[in-house]
């Protein structure tokens, strides 16, 4: 009869426990790596801030010291308003951004008293405007804001500025 020493069996158990500990260690490490990637792997969505900056820049150009900038209602200004307001829509040449156009800017000027539209001008990728009616994270960021202004003859205006920034590929994943 073969006599089995019970203390030798315990040594085998120790080996199994060591393997188990390694397995747990790897599982915990993998979980931590996954959590870090899932948090830091997502990009910051800065399109809202970019649209806000675009709106502010446009407002600065249209209204100076409380008065509507001279010539805003003329075609000469409206045809080249990006240049006149020192705004450019240049983007990085990735994901075909340059061909598609990543920005849209629209200005509507209303008579403040009657609410009638006086003037409207826009530039950029007008297809983006459709997405403002929809909701979802992967859609372009839209920002519509209004400011009040007047001209030197005390004519009052409500100026509506719509800014849209697409750039979904880099800001939303």
């Amino acid at each position, binding site marked *: 009869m073969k*006599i*089995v020493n*019970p203390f030798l*069996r*315990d040594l085998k*158990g120790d080996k199994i*426990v060591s393997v*188990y500990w390694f397995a*747990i260690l790897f*599982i*915990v490490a993998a*979980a931590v790596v*996954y*959590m870090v990637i*899932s*948090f830091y792997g*997502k*990009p*910051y*969505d*800065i399109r*809202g*801030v970019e649209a*806000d900056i675009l*709106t*502010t820049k446009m*407002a*600065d150009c249209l*209204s100076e*010291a*409380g*008065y509507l900038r001279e010539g805003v209602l003329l075609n000469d200004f409206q045809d080249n308003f990006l240049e006149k307001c020192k705004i450019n829509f240049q983007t990085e040449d990735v994901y075909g951004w340059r061909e598609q156009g990543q920005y849209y800017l629209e200005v509507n000027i209303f008579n*403040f008293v009657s609410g009638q539209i006086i003037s409207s001008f826009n530039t950029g990728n007008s297809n983006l405007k459709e997405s403002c009616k929809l909701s979802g*994270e992967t859609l372009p960021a839209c920002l519509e*804001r*209004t*400011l*009040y*202004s*007047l001209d030197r003859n*005390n004519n*009052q205006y409500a100026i509506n500025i719509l800014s849209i920034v697409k750039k979904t590929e880099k*800001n*939303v*994943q």
Partner: protein
Amino acid sequence: MFNKLLNKNNRGQTGETITWIVATVIIIVILLVSILIASVYLGNAKKFSLTKQADSLASKSFFSYLLTKDSTGVNVYEQLKKEQLDSKIKLGDNVKNLGEKVFSPYRTNYGVFVRLTNKVGDNWAEIIEPKTIIPKKNWADFIGDKIKLDDDKYVSMSLFSKY
């Protein structure tokens, strides 16, 4: 004797194994919960927003509002200059209505109020009511503009977050 020893050892090992299995299950459950939280709540697109020190559009509207003249050719700024801080404001309804209309677009994002106030801000008269409860926060949470009318008389426009 050996058999007795072996039996005792086996029971001990079974108990130990159950402890390990329970510990493993607890570890895996904790990890899964952490992963779920990380991917559902923290894994969403991270919105980046700047702490605003001013609202350019509201400020521009405020300046234009003060420059607006009434039918007699006197602008709001001049009318406010004549007002006494301690007595009830006698501004015409048209000035108040104009203010309400000018600042109504900002009410979707902010609470808005316009006041005639002294330098310290402990004495004031409302021109445009906030319409919502003003939160008891630091004054640093408010953004806006303050324009001097007289030695100790100012007109201020304040915006505060409603949420």
